[in-house]
């Protein structure tokens, strides 16, 4: 994993650790929404590409969220 991808994975997981425990929302949806709202398209494309290569390092709800991102960029 490149250091660039590593950083994105870390950032996505950080988001995941906030939304994971929330009770009012579905974590994966909330994570995907957050990334969609605040990440530049290139970053989003990069994390989706990372998912396509196996998504190493993505925590479970984040993994799910990136899948949703891929389905609806």
């Amino acid at each position, binding site marked *: 994993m490149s250091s*660039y991808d590593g*950083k994105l994975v*870390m*950032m996505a997981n*950080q*988001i995941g*650790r*906030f939304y*994971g*425990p*929330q*009770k*009012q929302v579905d974590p994966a949806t909330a994570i995907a929404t*957050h990334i969609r*709202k*605040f*990440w*530049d*398209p*290139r*970053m989003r494309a990069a994390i989706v590409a990372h998912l396509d290569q196996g998504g190493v390092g993505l925590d479970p709800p984040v993994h799910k969220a990136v899948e949703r991102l891929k389905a609806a960029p």
Partner: protein
Amino acid sequence: MSLVHETDYGTPVSKSTERVTLTIDGQQVTVPAGTSIMRAAMDTGIQVPKLCATDSVDAFGSCRLCLVEIQGRAGTPASCTTPVAPGMVVSTQTDRLKKIRKGVMELYISDHPLDCLTCAANGDCELQDMAGAVGLRDVRYGYNGENHTRQEKDESNPYFTYDPSKCIVCSRCVRACEEVQGTFALTIQGRGFESKVSPGASFDDFLSSECVSCGACVQACPTATLSEKSLIEIGQPEHSVVTTCAYCGVGCSFKAEMRGEELVRMVPYKDGKANRGHSCVKGRFAWGYAHHKERILKPMMRESIDQPWREVSWDEAIDRVASEFKRLQQKHGRLAIGGITSSRCTNEEVYVVQKLIRGGFGNNNVDTCARVCHSPTGFGLSQAFGTSAGTQDFDSVEESDVIVVIGANPPDAHPVFASRMKKRLRQGARLIVIDPRRTSLVKSAHIEADYHLPLRPGTNAAILNALAHTIVTEGLVNEAFVREHCDRDAFEAWAEFVAQPQNSPETVGLLAGVDPAAIRGAARLYATGGNGAIYYGLGVTEHSQGTTTVMAIANLAMVTGNIGRKGVGVNPLRGQNNVQGSCDMGSFPHELTGYRHISDDAMRETFEVLWGRKLDNEPGLRIPNMFDEAIEGRYKGLYVQGEDILQSDPNTAHVVKALSSMECVVVQDLFLNETANYAHVFLPGATFLEKDGTFTNAERRINRVRKVMTPKTGMGDWEITIAIAKAMGFDMHYDHPSQIMDEIARMTPTFAGVSYDLLEREGSVQWPCNAKAPLGTPVMHIGGFVRGKGNFLITEYVPTDEKTGPRFPLLLTTGRILSQYNVGAQTRRTANVAWHKEDVLEIHPHDAEQRGVREGDWVRLQSRAGETALRATITDRVAPGVVYTTFHHPDTQANVITTDFSDWATNCPEYKVTAVQVSPSNGPSEWQREYNAQAEHSRRIAAPNSAKIAAE
């Protein structure tokens, strides 16, 4: 143009709602109960002679000039200390009073030098005025008696002199230092005829004393005893213009007192609603950078950063910027360039920069320096309350009963607000300080925190959860407020979460290093002590859980019902003068003005119609993302207005790498800052004295900035941006910044009512300012939250990945000091260096001893990001295991040490937690030496019409 004269009512305003009617010199007057006779007289235009009274401090009754006669009462009471009473009949001028006043003035003048013509206060001296007012014609005591006229001046303070020979011992300075500033640095030494104003102990001069040079004493002095050195040198000003300070987020109003285009002095403006006539050393005195010799006044360019700078015309510079940016977009794509707006520039300037980027560059790669300070505030509060801003005005603190300060050091970073807060604390409000350091607020003159929770850096969220745990499990929830104003389901989910044992003070206390009993005590006090107000700073936001902590603060305010009225609220103390404004103005890559997401088609289209350009509907890059993309080779051009990203952003090595990877870096600033070392075009900026505009302070207050002198560079910053836009084919035309504000108001619902005309009338307004609130909104969320119901979010504590270990066993946290501002670009170029010449590392005695470090030793400070060296000072203000430094000096390069870890939601850097090691050192590090050599090389400016290279 003339001088802005402010009426001195002699005594402070009474806040009583009861009204009292009395007769003064035959005129009926009705005033609030508790008003002094002096002030009531002034209300009707009757000026009772006075010297010791001034309306910034409580009545004192010492000069004995303001005596009056009251029908039916014996004697001649002082009108300053005597309150009005119903039906009172007062005479301010009788033969008896005239005789006493003349007698008192005769005594004053018998001990005063007769050098009026050469005195700095000539023309602005209350003693002179009063001698005239009482008709003193003769001093029968002569001038050969005992006197003070040969005392020596104290010129130690760089900005003002103390000349005791001119002192009339009215104690206004002493009282201002106590009542207005709250420092208690001054006293009267000796008694009787020997009485003398003295800064602290007898061996002290002003500079060595506890004086913080706020200027309150100078402001209060009725004679030339305390005078600005600039006034002594230049002479009395002939006109003045009210404007807004360009330092911190308090946004103090000042009168720029001028002689022609020369600034004589900056005087705090009494009607300024943020500062109420007070000031600090920066705003009051540290404006000399505006004409510092290092200021760059001509545009400059170079092909590459190893070349010297070459001065060019404005046209040439602007053309270069436009052509380079266009070239880069052609070669690397539309997204390959972007820009950064400045929280130091005006709203109007910020607006046109983001407009240039969105409309002219055709992308949303715009961000602002708020990214690295308060971005978590915006996001966190919008999620909880629905608005990205603090909830109160500064006046609100006057009604607070319990004040909680988290991760903020107002006496250093927001001094003028700190003074107002300390005044309230001296009146009896209780205080809770949550900070790893024992800041001066924890214990200072007449102030002591009820609780200080000295938490381990990085454990904010855990501590706040523990406070919430106490409130929820001990039955201290404000049920009525929660029921009425908050989302019930969210509250219940949250309450269940905080009640869990891992959030108990006992568990959290262990990991945060805080006494659980103190956590419980603080929680009970905040929940039950009356109006509870939370003030916080970058110690909250600049963490990997910055946003989470902001939400946790919002949760605390909601669960206790401390929101929606005066005296309470959630109050971010903004770092820079226009952080709030730059965020409001659509500086963030994902949103347009008023915090509206760029993907909102209907809203975006209104801008597209107005600007005549199609706008990108995808969020752009944030500052740290820009660096990453630059290193990846996808981001090539950057326009930076008024921010020194190299010095202020974390992980300097990373920033250097990013800047070096770009092909066109354009820096617009007053000085060749550190970022400029890697720049290709330099556009000289204008100071706040040289342009019109507005700043929005931490309380959402929109204040006018007024031009008092012609830009020394020929261009205001907004004009430069417009010129670039035009050169890139995006013509935006404004004749004056007021037209930019008109556009902002038209396009932004929360600003709909704002105009320069309104600001002219009202002085300032707090947004939202629109049809619903035509004069602005001092306190938000009254009667309900902007988002509808208050939202409790679960704020689980997630320890940062930045962990101590055997290699880096200490935690570094950073902050500011009073006399310096941010990266110091301005303050380092003023006499403020008298107080803070260099950054030093605070280290606990225990840690110092283990490492053989003594006071003043050079130490090496290392983290996984880099290393630097600075001098150590040994103090128990920091806990064992924690070290602290400021980041004002580029020589220190504190950000070489900080890492690129950041807040989960906003990428706000985690400045406040870095694992480090400290070891003895002989002097500056290898990095510092190389850096300085590079900087020196890079700052060369080629002499005009000559091949010779002159070192700057």
